[in-house]
């Protein structure tokens, strides 16, 4: 009877979770959807507490209180700029929970219940994916938080080593399926998987993090699926599959937007991407510089302005200044839109959140495909701290390392103002012809300061 009740509660929870994800399809319904997901979670948890296996509640209460104490600041106090590392951190939490459950279940079954081959396979994958995600996520967190150097750390045969380690783990797992009572092998799997997680993330640079964070999301989901198989729990399988699918879709979207191949993402082999730029000599001669006054004058009298925020804006945390400038232009009668490249920011969709937090309404945040059709009727495009995502070489120069990457076609607009720290190159090390274009003028300086200067001048114009 109780078992039926629990399963029914899980069914309700699964329904609520899927509706929640559906509601996330639109910003108007998203918030309500998440409330129903939270309800689903509550239903599932309460139902689980009735499970026959659970006989004491003290330890559960202790864990829950500790978790809530840690979770509350993670939810309420973390700034939006720190979202990527916050998400990476909680991937580590989720994966750690899966790994520990895997270890405990293994030891339990080892002791009394006995292990079928299927169960052993599931437990093996659970701790493999779990341990790998724990250390990988902690590495990603440390890099994003600046605790470790963001630049890629590479050594020879890195990918080969990872591959060998992975094959080794799978062989151990097969041995364990054949003889489930080799506790030593089980813990070797846990340790080697953890080591793989570290060496997988080590070679990945800061700008590649959107792909990594998504990929770890997917791995964490698959670890949950394995848990579900191991303990015969459908809700875990369902939620893990949703999570895995989400991470998978996002990593594909991100890799596409960064011009990386699908297999490159799947096997996490980003290490080989440190392409030395080819054809670095500039073709177009001098960059035309502009003063803040002149640039502001053009903005003040422009009819349609598109702001293109990039990674540099996120680094400078200048999203509030960008919004203030936009507001001033709109007050003078201009129309301001924000062009969002899929990999602007440090995780999927990060730039949207940063601008939404600064108070930009979401209907002014325009996705790449849509805004690209609108650039030809734009008077002024303002590029703030973006480089590779607006480089026309991606569309025109097959020799360029970023060839094929989808970009924002800012050069279609009537004029372009580029706010940039200096004359340096973008992440890919490729020279950007846009900066030498006859339509383009450059405003050098710190992004935040330049935006403040522009705002002051627009106000006075």
């Amino acid at each position, binding site marked *: 009877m109780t078992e039926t009740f629990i399963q029914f509660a899980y069914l309700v929870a699964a329904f609520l979770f899927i509706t929640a994800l559906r509601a996330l399809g639109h910003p108007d319904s998203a918030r309500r959807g998440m409330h129903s997901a939270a309800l689903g979670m509550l239903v599932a948890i309460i139902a689980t507490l009735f499970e026959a296996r659970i006989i004491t509640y003290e330890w559960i209460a202790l864990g829950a209180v500790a978790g809530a104490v840690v979770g509350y600041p993670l*939810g309420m106090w973390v700034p939006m700029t720190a979202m990527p590392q916050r998400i990476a951190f909680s991937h580590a939490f*989720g994966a750690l929970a899966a790994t520990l*459950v895997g270890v405990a279940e293994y030891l339990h079954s080892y002791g009394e219940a006995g292990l079928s081959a299927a169960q052993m396979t599931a437990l093996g994958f659970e701790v493999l994916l779990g341990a790998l995600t724990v250390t990988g996520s902690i590495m990603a967190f440390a890099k994003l938080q600046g605790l470790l150097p963001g630049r890629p750390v590479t050594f020879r045969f890195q990918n080969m080593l990872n591959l060998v380690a992975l094959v080794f783990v799978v062989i151990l797992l097969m041995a364990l399926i054949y003889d489930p009572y080799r506790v030593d092998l089980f813990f070797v799997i846990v340790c080697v998987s953890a080591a793989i997680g570290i060496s997988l993330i080590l070679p990945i640079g800061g700008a590649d993090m959107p792909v990594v964070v998504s990929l770890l999301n997917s791995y964490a989901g698959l670890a949950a699926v394995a848990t579900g*198989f191991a303990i015969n729990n459908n809700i875990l399988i369902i*939620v893990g599959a949703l999570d895995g699918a989400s991470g998978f879709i996002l990593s594909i979207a991100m890799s596409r937007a960064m011009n990386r191949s699908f297999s490159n993402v799947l096997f996490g082999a980003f290490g080989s991407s440190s392409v030395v730029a080819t054809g670095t000599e500039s073709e177009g001669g001098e960059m035309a510089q502009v003063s803040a006054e002149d640039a502001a004058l053009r903005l003040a009298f422009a009819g349609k302005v598109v702001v293109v925020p990039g990674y540099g804006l996120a680094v400078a945390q200048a999203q509030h200044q960008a919004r203030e400038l936009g507001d001033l232009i709109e007050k003078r009668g201009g129309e301001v839109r924000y062009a969002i490249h899929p990999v602007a920011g440090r995780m999927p969709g990060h730039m949207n959140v940063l601008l939404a937090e600064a108070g930009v309404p979401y209907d002014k945040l325009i996705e790449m495909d849509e805004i690209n059709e609108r650039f030809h009727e734009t008077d002024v495009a303002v590029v703030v701290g973006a480089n590779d995502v607006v480089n026309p070489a991606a569309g025109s120069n097959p020799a360029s390392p970023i060839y094929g990457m989808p970009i924002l076609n800012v050069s279609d607009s009537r004029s372009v103002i580029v706010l940039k720290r200096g004359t340096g190159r973008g992440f890919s090390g490729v020279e950007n012809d846009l900066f030498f274009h006859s339509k383009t003028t450059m405003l050098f300086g710190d992004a935040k300061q330049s935006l403040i200067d522009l705002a002051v001048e627009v106000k006075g114009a």
Partner: protein
Amino acid sequence: MSSTLMIQLFVFMLAGFVGFQTISRIPPLLHTPLMAATNAISGISLVASLAVAGSAQGVLATILGTIAVGCAVANVVGGFLITDRMLAMFRRSKDKSNRGENGND
């Protein structure tokens, strides 16, 4: 191969399919909230942790289970709070700047 396992494989496949269909429809605008949301929902691994922490299978299992409960609850609490905080920031502009062409989102 047991029939339970077979059914689980079906559940996995169908859930994966539903996930792909549903999540492909989520616009890039909401991809960060999506990640926070899946993070919160993945706290469902709590149901496994609860069973380990509460079933008195020995000191080691109880300790591992309790830590797992803590991690999962942290994800549930933190995940739902931050997703809600984020989604609350997404606002539509007030009508003044709607000039017809951007009302089609």
